[in-house]
């Protein structure tokens, strides 16, 4: 069976959209897709070592006043955190996470070691464009 490719431009740094990205990654992992994630601008903040899945430091993109209710509901449903979703997908299928060099600098990270260990490398936008051109599925979150 031919391996399908998913290219995800992950712009968001908000907990609700990161969780949605995690759910989608789960589906891609179940299908053995090859996934390339390009972490752009606001997304890079969430990948900082001092943030990650610390929900206290993440905002909501939608319904910001309902963050606590949203997080409690996820907990009640036994839903993983966004970092756990990403880790699980990486354990199941080929997922590479690339931090945009500019995005890293915007949020004070210049080296791979400045980000949580989900990140695989720091790259330029050309890598994203090439991946997007080659992918079967392209998403921007």
């Amino acid at each position, binding site marked *: *069976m031919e391996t399908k490719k998913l290219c995800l431009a992950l712009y968001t740094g908000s907990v609700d959209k990161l969780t949605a990205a995690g*759910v989608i990654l789960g*589906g891609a*992992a*179940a299908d053995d897709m090859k996934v390339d994630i390009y972490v752009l601008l606001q997304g890079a903040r969430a990948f900082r070592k001092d943030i990650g899945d610390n929900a206290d430091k993440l905002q909501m993109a939608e319904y910001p006043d309902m963050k606590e209710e949203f997080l409690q509901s996820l907990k009640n449903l*036994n*839903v993983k955190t966004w970092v756990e979703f990403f880790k699980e997908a990486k354990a*199941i299928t080929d997922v590479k996470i690339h931090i945009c060099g500019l995005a890293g600098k915007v949020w004070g990270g210049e080296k791979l070691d400045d980000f949580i260990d989900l990140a695989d490398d720091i790259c330029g936008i050309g890598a994203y464009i090439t991946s997007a051109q080659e992918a079967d599925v392209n998403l921007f979150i």
Partner: protein
Amino acid sequence: MTTEELKKLQIKKSVDARGTACPGPLLEAKKTIGTINPGDIMEILSADEGTKVDVPKWCTKQGHEYLGTIEEGGYYRIYMKKH
């Protein structure tokens, strides 16, 4: 397959994913399918409505055989054969 036929199947592995929400049941099935042999039958227990749609489609894409679903009280038993 009829419900009676499904109930008589020899199950090699049963995946109880009733405590998880989407995509949990699908991922539990994905992890477990690697532990059984071609021809073996796996049963997935899920309380998530989406799973009874996801698993048949997943079987088609992955080359496995979807056998059927039994609706129990508050959850589903979904049967598939590994190819």
